[in-house]
């Protein structure tokens, strides 16, 4: 990545105005994944001085500033209690502490990285993103929009006692996932699959099916089969499409059994 200029802005307004000035200006979170891209950036805009690294606990929600590091989230006790702690589980498996002290939750979301272990659990949690100009949207809405020329301020996660399951299949703990699966069960079951190797997605058709069936072994097998056969998978250096399809079937079954037991 080439960076022409680097600015630590003092306000969100300043950052937003700078972002609009040139299409090659870019907001940086922690910058942990910059080496994964080969963009030419005219001005890199750092939000470090904008007080977006706070976690605020309310009665029903956690409001997480977009510049909060993954390590700070991993150590947050309240987050460990939400949806079976799947977000903390996902984060604690991302490389080492020295990277989790750099990477931010905002950068991990806005980057829409195909290898992300963050987007998959967030898709099955009750969470809302708040942007400076575009306002609030769910993470699913965000992932289905084109690139926003806006600034992510906060992520609000609703507290819940839902059961949760997360698994990231990796060759080593320092590697990116070959596939990852997240499931929550409250009143309904939500299922997301990521690192396919395309960006994480909710499995809406399979969710519609299982949420209208009595959950038993047959329904679990059929749900896993629907996801593994109908979802788009791909091949890359880490794994083949066939391998991903096969192990997704296994981990969907395991996850559904765990959250429905």
């Amino acid at each position: 990545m080439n960076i022409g200029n680097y600015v630590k802005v003092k306000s969100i307004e300043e950052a937003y105005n700078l972002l609009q000035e040139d299409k090659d200006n870019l907001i940086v979170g922690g910058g942990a994944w910059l080496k994964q891209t080969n963009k030419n950036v005219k001005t890199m805009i750092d939000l470090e001085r904008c007080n977006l690294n706070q976690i605020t606990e309310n009665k029903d929600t956690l409001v997480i500033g977009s510049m909060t590091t993954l390590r700070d989230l991993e150590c947050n006790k309240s987050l460990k209690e939400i949806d079976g702690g799947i977000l903390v589980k996902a984060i604690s498996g991302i490389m080492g502490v020295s990277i989790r002290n750099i990477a931010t939750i905002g950068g991990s979301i806005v980057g829409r990285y195909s290898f992300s272990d963050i987007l998959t659990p967030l898709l099955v949690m009750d969470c809302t993103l708040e942007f400076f100009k575009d306002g609030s949207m769910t993470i699913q809405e965000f992932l289905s929009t084109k690139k926003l020329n806006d600034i992510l301020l906060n992520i609000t996660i609703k507290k819940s006692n839902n059961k949760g399951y997360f698994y990231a299949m990796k060759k080593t703990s320092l590697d990116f996932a070959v596939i990852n699966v997240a499931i929550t069960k409250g009143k309904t079951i939500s299922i997301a699959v990521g690192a396919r190797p395309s960006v994480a997605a909710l499995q809406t058709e399979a969710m519609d099916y299982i949420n209208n069936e009595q959950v038993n072994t047959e329904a679990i097998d059929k749900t896993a089969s629907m996801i593994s056969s109908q979802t788009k998978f791909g091949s890359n250096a880490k794994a083949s499409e066939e391998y991903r399809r096969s192990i997704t079937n296994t981990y969907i079954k395991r996850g559904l059994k765990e959250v429905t037991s």
Partner: protein
Amino acid sequence: MRVILDINNQIFNVDVSPNEYLLDTLRNNHFKSVKKGCDSSSCGVCTVLVDNKPIASCTYLTAKAEGHKITTVEGIISEAEKLGKHMGDEGADQCGYCNPSLALTVYALKLENPEANTQQIREYLVGNLCRCTGYQSQHTAIRDYLGDKK
């Protein structure tokens, strides 16, 4: 661009490219204890402390470091020597290439969780690879270091 860096409580006024990483800046300024290994945030030998937290300097832009307190192993020399004594006692040391980064990470663990158990030590050190000794003797030495009240 010019940045002012606080490295081991000394102020350095350095000229860097906006896309220069802290690892290269430190090495260009004679902090050779900070090693260049994988250069892709996997091996951990480039670890330094930023505000007493371990970070992979190969992945951290120098421009970002301005306004923060950077610590290399030279800045915690007495703690590194204490850990080194325990490492020596356990035979947990061979080539020494990963030692500075390991000492910094263990020191950060001591600040964050001085009562860390073996499992917590293992989890904290996932990002610090050692290809000489295996990890068992290191973990024993680190447990002894954390338990050492001297």
